[in-house]
């Protein structure tokens, strides 16, 4: 398994609204790519464009350098934002049906259905109607539908929304395993901490354009330095607010998270902290993904 998804110059307008504006990025094999952006940024339209579910005014979507067609899309897995299963159909039959639509034989679809239902801990619900399942279990069935044909590319729109921690862990592990097996995984989420844990690469879009793209390591280590300083008695971090070139981005549990301009000497920050009280913590930290996101969107 392996491949490269390329989105090149995608443009899509809805009347006066520009949903995608010359959008370009890639999803390499074996990577989990987080696809981030505020509401209305164009994430869902982008994912729909990959599956030919929306018209494009310009641009192409390529798989291994070739424009996408139905044979390629048949080998992809898709989990749309608003989900989509037949409410009155049995879980097992529904998954087998979807597997066969992806080109599997009846026997293979049945075997894969059993495998994935067991893997996602819902094997006992195979004979239940989808509408009888909880939200979390319906989400698991939806994920199984995207996975059971062994996709080369997995596109998931908000797969973690509304899940309990156990569900997030289970689905997160599945995504990592898929990437480990060589699958391209692209998923969108507003849960940035989870994205930071799961993804090796992140693409952030806004107004239909890519504003930041790179590996999580690159993005976390780039930008201004972050200092976390804990001073006894200085819970409001008043001592830091008057320092030139220093911005207090957050004060939590007595620790101040400071953003330092390039010219600021960290020793001067340490001295100011010591003058304010006893310093119990003083450490440089990487940029969080939430900070990358906020700073990218201004």
């Amino acid at each position, binding site marked *: 398994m392996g491949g490269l998804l390329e989105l090149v110059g995608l443009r*899509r307008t*809805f009347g006066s*609204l520009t*949903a995608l504006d010359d959008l370009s990025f890639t999803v390499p094999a074996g990577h989990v790519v987080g696809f981030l952006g505020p*509401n*209305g940024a*164009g*994430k*869902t*339209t982008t994912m*729909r*464009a990959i*599956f*030919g*579910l*929306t*018209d*494009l005014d310009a641009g192409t979507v390529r798989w291994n350098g070739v424009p996408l067609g*139905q*044979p390629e*899309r*048949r080998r*992809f897995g*898709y989990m*749309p*934002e*608003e*989900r*989509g*299963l*037949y*409410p*009155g*159909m049995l879980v097992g039959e529904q998954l*087998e*049906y*979807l*597997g*066969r*639509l*992806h*080109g*599997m*034989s*009846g*026997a*293979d*679809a*049945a*075997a*894969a259905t*059993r*495998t994935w239902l067991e893997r996602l801990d819902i094997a006992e619900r195979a004979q239940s109607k989808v509408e009888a399942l909880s939200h979390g279990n319906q989400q698991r069935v939806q994920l199984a*539908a995207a996975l059971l*044909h*062994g996709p080369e590319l997995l596109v998931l729109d908000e797969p973690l929304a509304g899940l309990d921690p156990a569900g997030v862990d289970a689905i997160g592990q599945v995504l990592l395993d898929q990437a480990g*097996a060589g699958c391209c995984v692209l998923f969108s989420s507003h849960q940035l901490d989870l994205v930071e844990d799961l993804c090796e690469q992140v693409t952030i879009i806004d107004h239909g354009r890519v504003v930041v793209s790179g590996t999580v390591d690159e993005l976390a280590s780039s930008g201004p330095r972050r200092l976390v300083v804990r001073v006894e008695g200085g819970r409001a971090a008043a001592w830091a607010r008057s320092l030139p070139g220093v911005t207090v981005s957050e004060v939590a549990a007595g620790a101040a998270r400071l953003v330092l301009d390039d010219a600021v000497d960290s020793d001067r920050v340490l001295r100011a902290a010591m003058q304010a009280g006893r310093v119990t913590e003083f450490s440089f930290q990487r940029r969080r993904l939430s900070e990358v996101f906020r700073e990218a969107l201004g």
Partner: protein
Amino acid sequence: MTAAIVIVVGAVVLALRIWMRGRRRRGQVPSPEGARPPRRGSFGDSFGDVGLVALREIRERVRGRIFRVGTVIILLVVAGAIVIPVIHGGKAGPQEVGVVGPADPALQPLIQQAGARVGTSVRLVPEPSVRAAADALRSGAIDLAVVDGDRVVVNAPVTSDSTSTVATVAQEVAVELGIEHAYREAGLSGSQVAQLAHARPVPVQSLQPSTKGTARTTSVIGLILVFLMLTQYNTWILMGVMQEKASRVVEVLLATVRPIQLLGGKVLGIGLVAMGQAAIIVVFALVLAKAVGSDLLHGTAPLVLASELVWLFLGYAFYCWVYAAAGSMAERQDQVQTLALPLSLPIIVGYVLALTTAATGNPSVLFEVLAYLPPTAPFAMPVLVGLGDVAWWQFGASVLISIAGTVAMALVAAGVYRRAVLRSGQQVRVRELFSRPAAKRRGTAGVPG
């Protein structure tokens, strides 16, 4: 008709065999996890996807309670339509005819022959007076009375349109008595009158079988069934497409199959269920009619029945696309209802006019025109066949027009479906769908996100 039944039954059997094979294969030993699934060829892809969608529709519909209960109800109605006339015909007892006045040996054979001529037996009951006969008529003890050999008295008025047994016997007896009087006034002897009374009409040979009334009855029953089935299956299509859109499953499906494959599979699957149900009803009707000795399927009636089947097929083929396109434009029950009413108007108009025409037996010019228009031909043309008012080439021309209309409708519907089924939110309007150029690929309009 036999050929049509064989084709329909064959299609259903083939579909079931494919389905059963699929079930057997699912029961085989599974392949190891991670093994790449075998891929079909490009032709297999296209045909296979439509077939898979169709098989799902067949399985879900046949499994549903609505189908099973509906089929049983239709079979009961058909059974009633076949059996009740037979039972009713068998129970028609002899007509009691009161006779007032002096005994006349020529009167009895005359009245009995009149009864025989309208297909019923007659028993004469002497009545002492006109008053007694009137009382017997009112009480129902006798059905009609002949007074002094020159008057016929009945309880309820008899007109030329009356079709009851009493009325027809009374009219026949009246005619016979009138003739008998005329003979006597002409000076014929009693034996001559008796001889003339035994006169039988020479046979009238027609080029077509003489069961027009039976064929008309069969066409009415067929009309009702075509109306019920078209309404039912159109509703399935409408609701099925709407529900796929509302549940968003269509987005998952269209990520792997083309819109025309999904739509084609749906109309094919529901169509096979429709034809299968029609085949069950026809076979049931044939067997039952044979068993009870019904004449509903004698003469030209089988031809009418075959025509009904042809037009059920053509009617479904035309309307399924209309309703599928409509379903793709709605995603809520109230939206569906606003769409369903205007769509059902041509069906209702065609059905009502067809029933009226079948009853009167006099097709209007408008009705004959409707028999060539695809939306109303499924109702109008079988009635014309039942009335014997249509030549084979006229039937063929209507079929060809209907097929052409269906192809045109399928193209329009596929375009509407492709553009509308992924649009969520408000009900989609047709002019919105065609306000921008068609998709460059197979894509459909979506919403920003």
